[in-house]
C-alpha cells in the first residue's frame, strides 16, 4: 500500500467516471433498467463522446481527491462520431505516462469500451475497479500535494541565503 495512504476502516474509493452518451452511459442506464447491483462508488459525468474528454479533466479529478478515474466509450469502430474514441485512446496512452511520473498508479485510470448493450459490463468493471482501488488504498492527492508544498517551502528556505546572493550577483 502507498505510504501516504492511511485508509480508515470506513474509507471508500471515490471514482469519477466519464461516460459517452451513446454507448457507455446508455449501458449504465441499461444496468439500471436490468436492476443489476454494483458498488456505489462511481459518479458519472456524461459527455457526448469520449473524444470530448480532455486529459485535464482526469488530472483535475485526481488533484481534487478522486481515487480513480473511469472512462467509458464505444468499442473501436462503433463510435457514434466515427472515431472520437480512438482520439481519446491516443490521449490516454500519453496520460498514463504522465500519471506514472506524478506517482499515480496506472490502474487508477481505467479505460473501457462498453457498448449500449453491455449493462453487465458496467457492473463488472465498476466492481472490479473498486476492488483494485481498495487494494491500492487512498490516492489522497490533495494531501500529498500539500506535503510537497511544505517540502518545497523548506527547500526554498534552506536555499534562501544563496539565492539572495545570486540575485545580487546577477542583479
Amino acid at each position, binding site marked *: 500500500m502507498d505510504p501516504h495512504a492511511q485508509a480508515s476502516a470506513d474509507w471508500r474509493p471515490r471514482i469519477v467516471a466519464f461516460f459517452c452518451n451513446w454507448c457507455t452511459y446508455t449501458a449504465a442506464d441499461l444496468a439500471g433498467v436490468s436492476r443489476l447491483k454494483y458498488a456505489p462508488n462511481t459518479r458519472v459525468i456524461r*459527455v457526448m463522446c469520449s473524444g*470530448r474528454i480532455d486529459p485535464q479533466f482526469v488530472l483535475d479529478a485526481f488533484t481534487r481527491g478522486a481515487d480513480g478515474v473511469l472512462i467509458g466509450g464505444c468499442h473501436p469502430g462503433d463510435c457514434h462520431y466515427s472515431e472520437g474514441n480512438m482520439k481519446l485512446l491516443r490521449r490516454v496512452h500519453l496520460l498514463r505516462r504522465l500519471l506514472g511520473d506524478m506517482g499515480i498508479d496506472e490502474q487508477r485510470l481505467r479505460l473501457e469500451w462498453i457498448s449500449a*448493450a453491455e449493462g453487465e459490463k458496467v457492473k463488472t468493471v465498476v466492481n472490479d475497479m473498486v476492488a483494485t482501488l481498495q487494494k491500492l488504498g487512498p490516492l489522497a492527492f490533495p494531501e500529498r500535494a500539500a506535503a510537497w508544498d511544505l517540502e518545497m517551502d523548506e527547500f526554498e528556505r534552506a536555499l534562501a541565503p544563496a539565492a539572495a546572493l545570486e540575485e545580487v550577483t546577477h542583479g
Partner: protein
Amino acid sequence: MNSNGAIRIGFYICHCGTNIAGVIDVDAVAAYAASLPGVVLSRDYKYMCSDPGQDLIAQDIREQGLNRIVVASCSPLLHERTFRGAVERGGLNPFLVHMVNIREHGSWVHEDGGLATTKAMDLVRAAVRRVVHHIPLERSRVPVHPDVLVVGGGIAGIHAALTLAAAGKKVTLVEREPSIGGHMAQFDKTFPTLDCAACILTPKMTAVKAHPNITLWTYSEVTAVKGSVGNFTVTVKRKPRYIREDLCVGCLECIDACIYKDGKFADEFNLGLSKRKPIYVPFPQAVPAVPVVDPEHCVHLKTGKCKDLCVQICAERNAFDFDQQPEFIDITVGAVILATGFTTFDAKRIPYYGYGVYPNVYTALEAERLVNASGPTGGEIVLPDGRAPASVAIVHCVGSRDADYNRWCSRVCCMYSLKLAHLIQEHTKAEIYNFYIDMRSAGKSMEEFYNRVSEEGVHLIRGRVADIYPETANGKDGHIGRVIVQAEDTLIGRIRKIPVDMVILSVGLQPQDDAEDVRRMFNISCSAGGFFLERHPKLAPVNTFTDGIYLAGACQGPKDIPDAVAQAGAAAAEALALIDAGFVELEPNTAYVMEEECSGCKSCIPLCPYSAISFAEDVLKATINAVLCKGCGTCVASCPSASIRQHLFEDAQIFSEIEGLLTHA
C-alpha cells in the same frame, strides 16, 4: 427571461413512486440541496415527469423568479426533453436545466440506501455547480428531405414502403435478393389462421411494383451511408442481372430456352431441395418478374461460347445485356427504415441432431418448402427415397433458449411447429410427435390454435430432445432408415425413444450474418444477441439512437408476421412525422472557436469526422460550420490553446461538475 443577474436555482427531486424514494432518502437530499449556494427553492414530488410535476417547475419559475433548474430523477436520455419543455413553459430558456440521474445510476443499482443517498447528494452538488454555467441557447433547424429509404423487401419492408407511398412520399425499396417477399414468400400457410402466405403476400408485392411512389431496386445492396437525420446520402449497389429490367416483359421464355434442359444448380429459394438453371426467377410470383443470370454457371458469361438461345428467343425485345456491370447510385433521403430481417439458426451447429448427416433430418424452413404447393415436391411430404413418412418428429427450440447457442426464445417456433404438425398430418396422415420445452402460444388466437392441434391427435411431448441416431442403416436400394429421437418426457419422468421416418428441426431466429456490418454502416446499436437496438424497449420501439433511422420487423428481434407488419406501420408513421414536420431541430451542443484565442495551428481540422472545421485564410483562424458539427467535442478536447468550446459541454461546466463531485460540503 431571468437568466442573468443573481443565480436562483430551483431544485426538484422525484420519488418516482417508490422507484427512487424506496432506496434514496429524498427528503434528506432535498434538504441538502436547499443548503447549497444558489439554491433558493428545493422540492420533492411523487412523479416529477407527470403534468402536475412539470407544472410545478413552470409555476415556480414564474412565481419565484428561478433562472436555473436542477431535476434529480431518472436518466436524461429518458426525460431531458420533458424537463426542457417544462422549463420552457415557465418562460425560461430550455437549456438552463440540468438533470441528475439518481434512478438508473442510483436507486436501481444500489442496495445500500445510505450510500445511494450520499451518491445522490454528490451528484446533486455537482449539478448545482454546473448549472450556474449554463447559458441560454437556441436550437437550429435543418430541413428534412421528403424521401424515404426502406432497406429490406420482406413483409415488414413491403408494408412500410406501401404505407409511406400511400401517404404520398417517394420511397426507394432496396432488396438484396432478386425478388421481394423475404421469408414470408417461402412459407406455406401462416399460423394461427392457416391462410396461405402467398395469397396474402403476393398482392402486396405486386402493389409495390405498381405504386408510382415506390422505386423498387431488387438485387441491390446499400454500400455506404453519409449524412444525418433529414439528409442522408445513401450509396446503393445494383448488381448486374444481365437482363435489363426496363426491357424485360417477364415472359420467362428465356428460362425455357436455356441450353440447360433441366435445373442443375442448387435452388436458393428452395434451400437446395430443387435445382435451377443458370437463368432463373427465384419463384413463380417473384417481383419483379425479371430473371437473373447467375454468372457462376452461365455458359455465355463463363466461356463466351454459348448458342445464346435465351438471347435468340428474347429477339426484338432485346432485354439481354451480358456487359452489365455493378452500378453504384447515390440517393438522398430524409429518413431510413431498416427492415433487414433475420436468418435461421444453423442446425449443423448442434451435432447430436444429425442435420446434414441423416438425409431425413430437415429444418423447419425446408419443411415449409416441402408442404408448399409451389415447392420442390408440389406440396408432397416425401423422404429423399420418395416415400411419404409414416411418422414425423418435430423438435422445438433448436438453437433457442440454450446457453450454448442462442439464449433467447425465438417466439415463432412453437406456433410454426404446431402449424407444420397440422399441415403434415393433413397431407400424410403420419403420426406426429412435437417435442417441446414449454409451449409458448401467447397472442391472439394462438392458444386456441394450440388446443386445436392437440385435439387433432398430434403427440405433444414435453421434453428437450437429447439425441437423434439411426435405428437401421439406410438400405442399398436407397431406402432411408428410421432415426430414433430420444428425450426425457418430463411429464411422466421417463426417457422416451421414438423411431420416426422424418425429423424436422424447429430452428430459431437470429440476426442476419451481416447485421453487424449493416449496424455499423447506419451507425446504430445492437442488443446483446446482435439484433438492432431500439431507442427504448417500450416507449420508442421502432426508433434507434440515431435520429431518422427506424426499425421494422425481425431485424429488431424475433417476431411473427402480425407484429412485423404492426411495427412496419409504426416505423412508417415515425418517418412520416419526421418528414411532415419539414425540419428537425438540432441539439445546440455544437463546438465553436474563440477566434481571438485561436493560434491557427490547424490541428483540429483533420480530427473532425464531418469536415465541419475549415481554415479561414483571411484571418488565419479555424472556423466551425455549426450545421455540419454533430457535437462530439473531440476538437474541443484536442485544441492546444483551449480556443474551441462546446455548448452544453463547456470546460467550465465539466470542471465545476468534477469539483462538485469531489468537494464535500
